[in-house]
């Protein structure tokens, strides 16, 4: 019927909506979007021909399944009446697209053979839940945490014998605290700077060894805490206003507990389940805390588990650019 593609507007260099981005992909997206609406935001759902002719699109209704269905049907109907010459790129343009795609694929940093975790966060039940709308109560968000193969080894003791323990290297635990134990339940916020990490402890203990498999327990505690420096920062600190405290703070106090199984023969984790119970405080407009003055402290749960291996599970972490990978 149609080819579904999901993507982020942001790019490591210039974003797709940056008018100075001269990539084939960006120019095509801008061409499609400008046929749809005049909104500043490029967020939305668009049905288009490979040549970049808009068939249907919306900026508003991405969360309404029925409206999206209607939009897709509208797009498919227009497709039927579009001539082949209008539908497709010329061979020359297509070759350009294929070449750019190959370059993009070569740039991907997915840590093959490493540890790729799915990170799911959701608000936990709280005493003042009646003040929270049902939509917000049900919200959750998803991200991925990446560890290269050499880094994954640091998540288990060097000698995997029963009773052996190892403190996971601090920089790896800091990666979790700064980029993944962040209040992203309702939207985006900034990662925590390194100097805001007050605690980053995680211990791995071998519970059992059987054939190639090592059973591990994880227990840990991280803390991040940041105080407003007096300057409004979009997406991080709020403008002064009613209900906005003069001294803005944000942070996450996270307790980790879980288990994993490592396959020594395959040299990879085959199971990983860590539950993170956090207390989070602070918030801004982008993560939809400021509008509701929902600055906490309030409980938030995070679950770390092994990510799948299909293309949808290879999406880079939100703050990947801050990982500092060369």
């Amino acid at each position, binding site marked *: *019927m*149609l080819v*579904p*593609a*999901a*993507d*982020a*507007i*942001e790019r490591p260099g210039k974003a*797709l909506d940056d008018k100075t981005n001269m990539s*084939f*992909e960006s120019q095509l*997206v801008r061409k*499609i979007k400008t046929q749809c609406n005049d909104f500043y935001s*490029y967020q939305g*759902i*668009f*049905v*288009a*021909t*490979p040549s970049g002719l808009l*068939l249907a699109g919306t900026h508003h209704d*991405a969360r309404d399944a029925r409206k999206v269905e209607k939009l*897709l049907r509208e*797009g*498919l109907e227009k497709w039927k009446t579009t001539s082949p010459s209008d*539908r*497709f790129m010329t061979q020359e343009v297509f070759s350009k*697209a294929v070449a*750019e795609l190959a370059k*993009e694929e070569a740039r991907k940093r997915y840590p093959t053979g490493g540890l790729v975790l799915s990170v*799911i*966060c959701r608000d936990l*039940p709280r005493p003042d839940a009646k003040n929270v709308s049902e939509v917000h109560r049900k919200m*959750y*968000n*998803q*991200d*991925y945490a990446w560890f290269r193969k050499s880094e994954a080894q640091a998540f288990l003791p060097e000698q995997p014998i029963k009773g052996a323990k190892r403190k996971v290297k601090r920089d790896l635990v800091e990666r979790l605290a700064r980029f993944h134990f962040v209040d992203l339940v309702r939207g*985006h916020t900034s990662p925590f700077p390194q100097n805001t990490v007050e605690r980053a402890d995680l211990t791995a*203990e071998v*519970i*059992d060894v*059987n*054939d190639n*498999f090592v*059973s591990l327990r994880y227990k840990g505690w991280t803390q991040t805490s940041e105080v407003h420096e007096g300057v409004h920062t979009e997406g991080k600190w709020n403008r002064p206003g009613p209900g906005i405290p003069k001294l803005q703070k944000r942070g996450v106090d996270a307790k980790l*507990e*879980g*288990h994993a*199984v490592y*396959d020594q023969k395959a040299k990879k984790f085959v199971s990983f389940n860590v*539950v993170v*119970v956090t207390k989070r405080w602070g918030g801004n407009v982008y993560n939809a805390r400021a509008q509701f003055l929902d600055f906490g402290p309030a409980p938030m*749960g995070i*679950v770390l588990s092994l990510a799948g291996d299909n*293309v949808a599970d290879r*999406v*880079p972490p*939100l703050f990947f650019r801050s990982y500092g990978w060369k």
Partner: protein
Amino acid sequence: MSHFVTGTVATLLLLVPGIGLYADEGKPLRTPKLSAENAQLRDFVLPNPSEASYRKIPWRTSVLQGIVDAQKNDKPVMIYLMNGHPLGCT
């Protein structure tokens, strides 16, 4: 109802120490005993099958991949574009 049953079975399996999926014959791999609420919290936080149903769609993870595949397959492309990747953190 089916989600309740699935979640309950998963919770029971996680709560019982000593049941290991990775095991030699007759010698199960021991797993640690975790706090009582660990499995309950895990079930609460993870998306239920309905919430995760969008992941069954055979997404291409970039506009460019979608456009190229659409041209190859003589089909239109549906582009879902967000600040933050819709299949990751959006």
